[in-house]
Structures are given as C-alpha cells and as structure tokens.
C-alpha cells in the first residue's frame, strides 16, 4: 500500500465556502434507458434550510440526491451551488457530503478513522480534536476505537452523520438515513437530526418516503411523484392546502368528494356536492369552474347525531351512517357511508365530552369553509393513496 503517496494529491473542493450558497437545480433530468427518473426538475434550496424531498419509492428523489452528490450524471440540466455550476464536477470536488441509506461506513477503519476520512483526504494533518468534537456531538465519544460493525444500527447512523458533518459541507444530503431503524429509534433520531441541523446551521437535503418524518423535521417539503415535484412549501401549508390529489392523499389522508363549482363569491367558492352547497375559501381552490374534487382532512370534520348539528360547521352534509368504528386510544376513526354511497373518514379526539357513536348510527358531518380545499377533477382521486398505507 502506498500510504502517504495520495496525501500529496489533496482533493480541492472547487467551490468557495461561506454562508449564503443556495443549492439550485435548473431543468434537471435523468433518464435510465427509456425510463425517466427525474423530469425537468427546477428548485431552489435556500442556504441553511432543512429541505425534505418526499415521495414514494421510484419517484426520482434518490436519483436527484445522487446527481447533487455527483454520483450520477444528469441527462440534461444544471446544478448550481452558490453562483457556481457544479454539474460536471467530480464528487470529490463538490463541497457536498452524503449520509447514505445503508451508511456505507468503511469496515476496515475504526469509527474515529471513518469520521476523519474526509478531513484527511483534504490534507488536514491534525484531526483528533475535531473527530472527538464530532463524536461527542453524536454522543459516541467513547466509541472511537471500535469498528463500525460492532455498533448498533442507530450508532452506525450517527457515525455516518458525524463522518459527513465533520467536513462542514455546503449541503448535507441525507438519503433515507433513518429507514433501517425501528420506530422508536427513528423518532429519537429525527429530533436529534433537527437539533444538529439547528446547531450547525448547514443546509440539509433530506430524502424520505415517510411523510411524518418530512413534516416533523423540514422547513420546506417538496412532494415528488414520477420524476416531477407536485408541490413545495412549508409542511403546514402543504398539509392544509394541497394543490393536487397526490399531495392530498400522500401527505396524510383526505376525503375527496366529487362536486361542481356553482358560483364564485368574493373570497369563497360555492360547490354543489350531491345537492348540498359547500363553501371553500378561494385561497385553497385550485380549480374555479366545472367538475372538481372537494377535499377535507378527516380530523377537521365534526360528527353530530342527525338533526342536532351545532353551528361549528359552515359546511354540513347530512344523513351519513356510521359503518365502522376503530378506537385507537387517543382518537377514534369513523368510516361514514354517505347517501351517495361513498365512505368518508372522520378522526375524532377522545375528549370524553360525548359517547362514541356506534356502527349504524345516523350522523351529520360538519366542517369549516377554510378547511375545505378544491382540486381539479381531471386528476385521479386515489393518486398517492396506496403509498400512504405503506408509509409508516
């Protein structure tokens, strides 16, 4: 082995470091043979933000990440970091580091040597203090001499994180880094990741298929489907105001009912749903005429016994019949069969204010106009549904 020989050829990241370097993808496309993995993607990740690329498997999110890392060459389009075009730079010339899904820790090196790898390749001689600081940050200060394979999955994940963070990259890419962990550990690591991101202030781009993970951690979520971004924004905005049926179904659950727009008022849209007029605010209407999907989130709906509707609902649809009750402790999930045959979902907190409805009970459904969203009926009402069930 030629120890020392390679030390002379220090990799030299080609981009000036410093704050304020946004990551910009411009018309980025990637094709594998006839398959289009990423299709004309344009987006900006602001410096210092926690950005989540959310989508089902095969939607192109990991490919996008790998193109940013330089491990995949785009078929078309450009990648900018700050002002500089990094599209054609070799991976080791980019101030970008990745936490891989399977961690990809070097089995022949100790934990500390793994963490020191990036610094040493850039010609730093004294790395011990820095390595110790990073291992402390991920709470593995006493494991530096171990081999990665002697650590648990959660610990390996943190080594992978420390190994990437130590280089203080402009952008840290996280490729489903929590996918292999069990639920409890994953929740713990989500909080941890968010804490570290806030502490070090780097730009994180996090790829995941777990909508809850994306929403709890990210400042901005981009929902990706079939190689394109369906919608992008802060988690709350995406959840409350989905622009497509895919987003409505993939991010949480939605009740989508067919209707058609009857009238536009100043800031409200009137939609006829099976003979009942339903109001929606115009800011949440993504279609303004003709056939539409009227949507409402299950937890935004109130249930009342038929004929006893109180005034908390502006929109009321009547004469539903409870056909399934599932009690989950903190809440109860009802399936309500409507007179037109569709089953709607309602989540109710178990506040104890009223007894649970039983199967067969006749109920009215009420919800506020501002919780209603209107989507173009040209889309499939079930887009994104099956993925939601797979996600955890």
């Amino acid at each position, binding site marked *: *082995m*030629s120890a020392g*020989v*390679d030390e002379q*050829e220090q*990799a030299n*990241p080609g981009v000036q470091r410093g704050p304020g370097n946004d990551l910009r993808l411009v018309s980025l496309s990637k094709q594998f043979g006839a398959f289009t993995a990423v299709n004309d993607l344009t987006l900006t990740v602001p410096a210092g933000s926690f950005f989540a690329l959310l989508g089902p498997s095969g939607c192109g999110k990991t490919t996008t990440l790998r193109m940013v*890392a*330089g*491990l995949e060459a785009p078929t078309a389009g450009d990648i900018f970091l700050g002002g500089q075009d990094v599209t054609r730079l*070799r*991976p*080791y010339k980019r101030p*970008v*580091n*990745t936490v*891989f899904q*399977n961690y*990809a*820790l*070097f*089995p*022949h090196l*100790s934990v500390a040597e793994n963490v020191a*790898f*990036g610094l040493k*390749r*850039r010609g730093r001689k004294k790395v011990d203090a820095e390595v110790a600081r990073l291992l402390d940050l991920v709470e593995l200060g006493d494991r530096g*001499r171990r*081999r990665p394979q002697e650590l648990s999955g959660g610990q390996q994940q943190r080594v992978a994180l420390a*190994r*990437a963070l130590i*280089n203080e990259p402009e952008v840290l890419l996280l490729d489903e880094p929590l996918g292999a962990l069990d639920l409890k550990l994953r929740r713990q690591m989500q909080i941890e990741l968010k804490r570290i991101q806030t502490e070090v202030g780097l730009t994180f781009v996090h790829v995941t298929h777990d909508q809850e993970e994306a929403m709890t951690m990210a400042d901005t979520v981009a929902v990706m489907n079939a190689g394109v971004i369906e919608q992008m924004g802060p988690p709350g905005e995406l959840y409350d105001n989905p622009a497509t049926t895919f987003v409505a179904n993939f991010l949480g659950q939605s009740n989508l009912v067919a209707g058609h727009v009857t009238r536009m008022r100043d800031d409200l849209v009137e939609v006829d749903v099976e003979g009942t007029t339903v109001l929606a605010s115009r800011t949440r209407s993504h279609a303004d005429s003709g056939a539409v999907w009227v949507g409402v989130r299950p937890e935004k709906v109130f249930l009342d016994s038929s004929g006893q509707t109180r005034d908390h609902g502006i929109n009321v649809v009547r004469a539903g019949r409870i056909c399934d009750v599932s009690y989950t402790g903190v809440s109860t999930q009802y399936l309500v069969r409507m007179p037109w045959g569709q089953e709607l979902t309602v989540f109710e907190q178990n506040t104890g204010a009223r007894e649970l409805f039983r199967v067969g009970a006749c109920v009215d459904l009420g919800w506020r106009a501002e919780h209603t969203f209107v989507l173009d009926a040209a889309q499939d009402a079930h887009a994104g549904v099956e993925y939601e069930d797979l996600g955890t």
Partner: protein
Amino acid sequence: MTATLVRAGRWVTGHLVMFVALLVLFYMFLPIMVVVLMSFDDTADVAYQFNGFTLANWSDPCSSYGMCDAVAKSLQIGLLATVGATLLGTLMAFAMARHHFRGRSIANVGIFLPMASPEIVMGSSLLALFVSAGFAGQLGFATILIAHIMFCLSFVVVAVKARLSGMDNGLEQAAMDLYANEWQTFWRVTFPLVFPGIVGAALLAFSLSFDDYIITNLVAGQSQTFPMYVWGVSRREIPPQINVIGTAMLLVSILVVVMAEVVRRGRNRA
C-alpha cells in the same frame, strides 16, 4: 446398573459428533505424522521404516545430494509464479467484476478451463506448444514458470473475484463523496478491502506451484524441482532429509495460519 448403562449410552450419543470428528482428523493427519516422525530417522531406505532416532537430518538437511538445489528452484519458481499470477489475476478479476465488456461471459468460462482440464492434458499441450514454438532446446526454468503462472492464474481470478463481488461498491462512492479521488479511493478503500482475498489467492497460488509435478515434469527439460527430485530418488531409496523439508513446510504453514489469526483477533480487540 441399567441406569448407569443408559447414562453412558446417552453420553456416547451426545458426543458422537466429536468422536467422528476426531477420527476424521486422525485420518487426515496420520500421513503427516509419519512425515514428521521420519524426519528423525537415521537411515535412508525404500521401506519407510523407522530405524533409529537422530537430529542429523535437521542439522544438515542439504546432505542429501541435489535436494537443496531442487528446493531452491521450487521456491524461486513458486515465489515468481505467485507474484506473476497474483498480479495478473487480480487485474483480471477487477476487469471481470467491475466492467462490462464484449466477451466477458466467454472470458468467465475460459478462466475455469485450466482448472477443469486434467493436468496431463495441459502439460502435454504446453510441451507441444513450447516445442513447436522452437523452445525444445531451452526447456527449463522459464518454461516451468510460464506454465505455473498459467495454471495458478485461474485460481487467483476466481478467489479475488469472489471477494470483489461480495464488496459493496457504495463504499467507493462514499469515499469519493468524502473527497477521495479515484487513486485515493482505490488505495484507501478498495484495496484494503480486497487485500485478504488477494493474500488468500497468493497463498493458494504458491502451494499449487510448489506442489506441482505433472505439468512441471513435462515442461522442465533438464531442470529439477523439489517434487521431481522426490519422485526421482524415491525409486532408489528415500532420504530422510525429504521429510525434514516436508515438516518444515508444515511448520511454516501452521505459523502463517496462527499469525493470521493473531492479527485478526488483535484487530478485533482494538
């Protein structure tokens, strides 16, 4: 009484696997024990009979005429063939495991052929090749070396390729992601991970080369390797010094295995 018998019976059936294992080990090591024992025999004869104990064979193994020259030749050829076959074979294994090229599947089959074909066939065809190429007068060290590199190569390729295909190339991507260029990635990540496979392949190549008689005998001309020497003298009488060499080889291999194990354990503890 019956209870004792039953208990004894249980003990025997419970340890049956161990008994069988010991028997098998005994069966495997008995011939080697004979070699070790005979290295202390004081007279040369054909019968492999222990006549009396002496340390003379060990203090002067080269006293048997021509043997040490043969051993030296075998060691030279073995080392050179190992270096040549390991170098070429490792490069071939990388090419075949990492790259897709026209004729890769044919190459994959081709590499198995020398392992599958009988040595006598390979030996005679090599001899025919050398003779028809005009080397009939110069058979010797060089032709033996060429032949040995040839038949060791397949084993090296197969061993290294197995190691490579078990390796995640995500590790190399991770290295590139962590600012290691192609050269650094190879020496810092790929090579250390494939190294155990290469060492294993080299050891295998050396023992194959040191051991070979059939092919060597056909392409050796006037040269004599250790196996050829043993065959030659064994028809008259077997000098006990041969057993000294045999025992020394055994000790060296045990030493190598023990050292490898010590290194492995030390590394795991660190």
